[in-house]
């Protein structure tokens, strides 16, 4: 709080004596909070520890005879879950605040070390047999249960990526496009289907108020997965690309209306940009087919003008969401 500014506002009669007093009291009693710094360190610690353990197991997977590392990992898992079960606040279908600021990280530690443990177990003893589906299915179920039971968004993200892995897809931000090789017909349809399922589930989550704050996570994964798969389909299925684009645009329209309704700038931007990529592809293909002449110039003209158009659209949508704000 800028106290001279508040004094000036007070002198102008814009704020009351009480407000000025509160501002001064706030500034006077202000503490230096290390909240974010400490949480960042804790988070880094959990990532480093579990990452290190994962590598130890991975490297020595054939030679761990004495099982010491395994016992260590099991101890961490059991200890973490024991702590979480003891400390947790009562379960509820709404957002449940963590009992303290360490809780979330201990739960994370427990879940990650459990994953490492299960991974090693599967390798060594084939507990799930040759059934890959089961080997990803069990961790996924555990993660989902933990995410809902303890109300943890990070664990939920892990669970969703495991769900995708179970369906044969890799959907973390950096691997979504790189590792999937979306020319495979099966992957395109799996991706679109899973995307739609996640989006629908997100909507259900918020409508039925089953942990409504989980919706963003579902929608985020679902949206990206759906659009990347659908665009891959657009590029792959040459024969019906116009039809494909029409379908894509229709769904994009629906999603955009939803996103505006829930006033999410981020989702609106993503939907607009993905749809714009599809639109540009379709228009450029049409140009390519239709004109014999200067295709490059025409393409550049189209891209330049359409970019302006989309920019104007974004500004309008932004204003629209803002107007909703004041309603």
């Amino acid at each position, binding site marked *: 709080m800028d106290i001279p500014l508040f004094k000036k506002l007070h002198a102008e009669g814009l704020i009351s004596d009480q407000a000025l007093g509160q501002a001064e009291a706030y500034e006077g009693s202000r503490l230096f909070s290390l909240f974010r710094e400490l949480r960042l360190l804790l988070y880094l610690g959990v990532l480093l*520890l579990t990452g290190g353990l994962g590598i130890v197991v*991975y490297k020595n997977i054939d030679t761990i005879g004495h099982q010491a590392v395994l016992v260590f990992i099991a101890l961490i898992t059991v200890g973490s879950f024991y702590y979480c079960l003891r400390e947790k606040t009562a379960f509820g279908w709404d957002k449940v605040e963590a009992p303290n600021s360490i809780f979330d990280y201990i739960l994370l530690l427990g879940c990650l070390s459990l994953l490492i443990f299960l991974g090693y177990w599967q390798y060594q003893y084939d507990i799930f047999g040759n059934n890959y589906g089961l080997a990803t299915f069990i961790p996924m179920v555990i993660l989902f249960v933990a995410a809902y039971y303890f109300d943890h968004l990070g664990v*939920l993200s892990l669970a969703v990526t495991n769900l995708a892995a179970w369906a044969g897809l*890799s959907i973390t*931000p950096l691997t979504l496009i790189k590792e999937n090789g979306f020319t495979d017909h099966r992957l395109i349809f799996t991706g679109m289907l899973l995307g739609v399922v996640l989006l629908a589930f997100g909507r259900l989550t918020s409508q039925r108020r089953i942990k409504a704050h989980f919706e963003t996570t579902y929608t985020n994964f679902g949206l990206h997965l759906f659009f990347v798969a659908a665009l891959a389909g657009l590029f792959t299925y040459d024969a019906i690309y116009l039809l494909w684009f029409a379908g894509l645009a229709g769904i994009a329209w629906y999603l955009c209306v939803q996103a505006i309704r829930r006033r999410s700038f*981020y989702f609106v931007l993503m939907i607009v940009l993905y749809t714009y990529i599809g639109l540009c592809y379709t228009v450029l293909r049409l140009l390519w087919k239709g004109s014999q002449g200067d295709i490059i110039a025409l393409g*550049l003209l189209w891209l*330049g003008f359409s970019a302006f158009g989309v920019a104007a659209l974004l500004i309008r949508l932004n204003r629209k969401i803002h107007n909703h704000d004041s309603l």
Partner: protein
Amino acid sequence: MIVYKHIDLDNRDVRKQAAAALSKKIITKEEFDRIDVAYSCDLYTPNFFVRVGLFLLTVLAALCCLGLFVLTSGGGDKSLGGLFIFFGVLAYAALELFIYTRRIYEAGTDDALLLIAGSMIITGINILSSHIDPLMESGMVLALALWGFVRYADRLMALISYAAFLCLIFYQLGESPIGRALLPFVVMVVSVVLYLLFTRLSALSRLRFYRSGLVLLRVAALLSFYAAGNYYVVREVNAFISHHSGAIALGFLWWTLTGLVPILYIVRGVQKKDLVFLWTGLGLMAAAVFTVRYYYHILPAELAMIICGSILIAGAWFLIRWLHEPKYGFTSAEIDDPDPALLEGLPVEGLILAESFRPAAAPPEPGVHYGGGTSGGGGAGGGY
């Protein structure tokens, strides 16, 4: 100098403060509305995501424009270079026009146009002249970026001009053997002087519109001070300019600086309750660890990770518990809400997590023998 009207920027700041006070319930909604009317501001600053979108679209539109220009101009290096410069000037003109007519401020379009204008002019000059030495190049970048910072208060331009200034020193001193030997010390002295200068400048009310840029410049000065004394940086830069690598003189000094400076930053950050020092120190701590590990493999990486991780968890846990009740003006409790408008509760942490611990995707054919790494960093490949 600055392109925006002072009153607009001042009012914008008042409104921001009022909004913050409203969210902390220091002022009432009625008071906020009164301030809102009294301090109007018609600068257009959209939401952060819209800003990103506008940035990308502006870059696309400008590049297409440039493409059309090139198509119509025909060939020839001379005309091409002139075209780039002309285009850069045009981008500046468009920027001024947009600011005057559409009142954009930190709107994405202005960021993009400023960046495009500068880079086009530099590219054009490079095409036109057959040979430009790095010294000249740094000077040009410095001049253009400084102009961008002074006129548009653009933070990216502030950082670019700082980097260009460092390059200027680097190329100037790199020419002579004495200069090469003195380079780290000169950079350190310059960093200290500039840090003090930036701190002084940001206290001036006349320069209040540049404050956020000056904070970044302070961070940059702290970083360059550390880099000038970091063993890895000194060794690599030395190898780069003298063309032979190997151990360097005064190794003890550089190692001391590598380890000590981050700690001093953190200590000072805690002492002065200065976030700039604290965060820079925390970040550089990681840099120091990586530097040591690069040359001395004291422990295998995974063991180092486990030990560091355990220490971090234990230390952070202890501090959180200890500062639960505020001590010496510190607390581990949350007092300032994280900026809710920016991330809108996006699960950023969750995404980083999912990225670090990505499961291996199932093989397409069921029944293929599977054996390895469902989880765990580095185990993502999974042999099957």
